[in-house]
């Protein structure tokens, strides 16, 4: 049998459309498990916030709302560049795809950089008004509910930390895609990896869309 199959069509698929649908279905199923994973963290947040509303109010007030908002903008912008990377591949612009992937990588790294600065403020409190806000023996806050605020910060570090790990993994995949895209591997007939990574990236963006108000914005009024 002489083979006219393109090399990017895996041998176990009949045609490109089937391959694409399988890939999309697979990543969506994975994302459902991710919803439940982060859902567990959100559930813990809800239960403990119900128990210690005062501490949540206080803890939230210690977060840097400006950096949090800037990061929200950066991350949503990275979702736009990600969507554009997929679109570039769809219309056959191999260069455009690579460039938008790099833009997404840079924006994602910017997010992590700002996150690191925020973590730094908690780990290395300045001389003026900052408290050491990392849960553990050295946790320091002058408040009658300091112990409960510590629980808030446990949630803060776990939730933003898990989110950051997802972003680090995402950036790793994007770097790999970038190298492939530079070689011109993605085009109008085949762009599954870009599309699927895009879905993952947007999902991580959605998690942050909920984390931002729940961590930074409660109890500001």
């Amino acid at each position: 049998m002489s083979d006219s199959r393109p090399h990017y069509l895996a041998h176990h698929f009949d045609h490109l459309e089937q391959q694409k649908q399988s890939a999309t279905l697979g990543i969506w199923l994975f994302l459902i498990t991710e919803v439940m994973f982060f859902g567990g963290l959100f559930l813990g947040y809800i239960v403990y916030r119900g128990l210690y509303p005062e501490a949540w109010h206080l803890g939230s007030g210690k977060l840097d709302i400006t950096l949090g908002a800037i990061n929200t903008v950066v991350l949503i912008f990275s979702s736009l560049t990600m969507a554009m990377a997929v679109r570039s591949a769809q219309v056959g612009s191999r260069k455009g795809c690579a460039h938008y992937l790099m833009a997404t990588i840079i924006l994602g790294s910017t997010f992590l950089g700002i996150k690191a600065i925020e973590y730094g403020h908690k780990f290395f409190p300045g001389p003026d008004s900052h408290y050491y806000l990392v849960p553990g023996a050295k946790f320091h806050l002058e408040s009658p509910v300091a112990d409960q605020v510590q629980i808030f910060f446990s949630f803060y570090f776990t939730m933003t930390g898990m989110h950051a790990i997802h972003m680090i993994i995402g950036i790793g995949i994007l770097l790999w895609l970038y190298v492939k895209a530079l070689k011109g591997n993605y085009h109008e007939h085949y762009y599954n990896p870009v599309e699927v990574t895009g879905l993952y990236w947007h999902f991580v963006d959605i998690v942050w869309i909920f984390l931002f108000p729940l961590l930074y914005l409660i109890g500001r009024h």
Partner: protein
Amino acid sequence: MEHPVVPVKTYVSVFAALMVLTALTVYVAFIDFGHGLLNDLVAMTIAVIKAMLVLVIFMHLKYSARILWLIAGSSVVWLMVMIGLTLTDYRSREWIESQLHRAAPWTSGPAIEQPAEPAASGH
């Protein structure tokens, strides 16, 4: 199902809408709606709208096979089961505790027998 190429204009409009909503959620966080729950309701409504925009346009749900709608929707169902059932436990504990130590409102006498007077058993 081949999805069509989404116009750049659509993506940029969605991005602009997300920016406006981000600004809005920060702005309303500083307004006191009188009850803490109302503030949460407003913030979560804005977050859900933002998430929907990302899901429908950036994640191409609008242009995808219906099976993906079902899968995306099912995650909400499972999440609600997990959160809903857990909260029925946590939020009812205090109430159940109070009911166990008090006369049920529909009976005339005390639900739990009071211990006998110590004097009665003194003989």
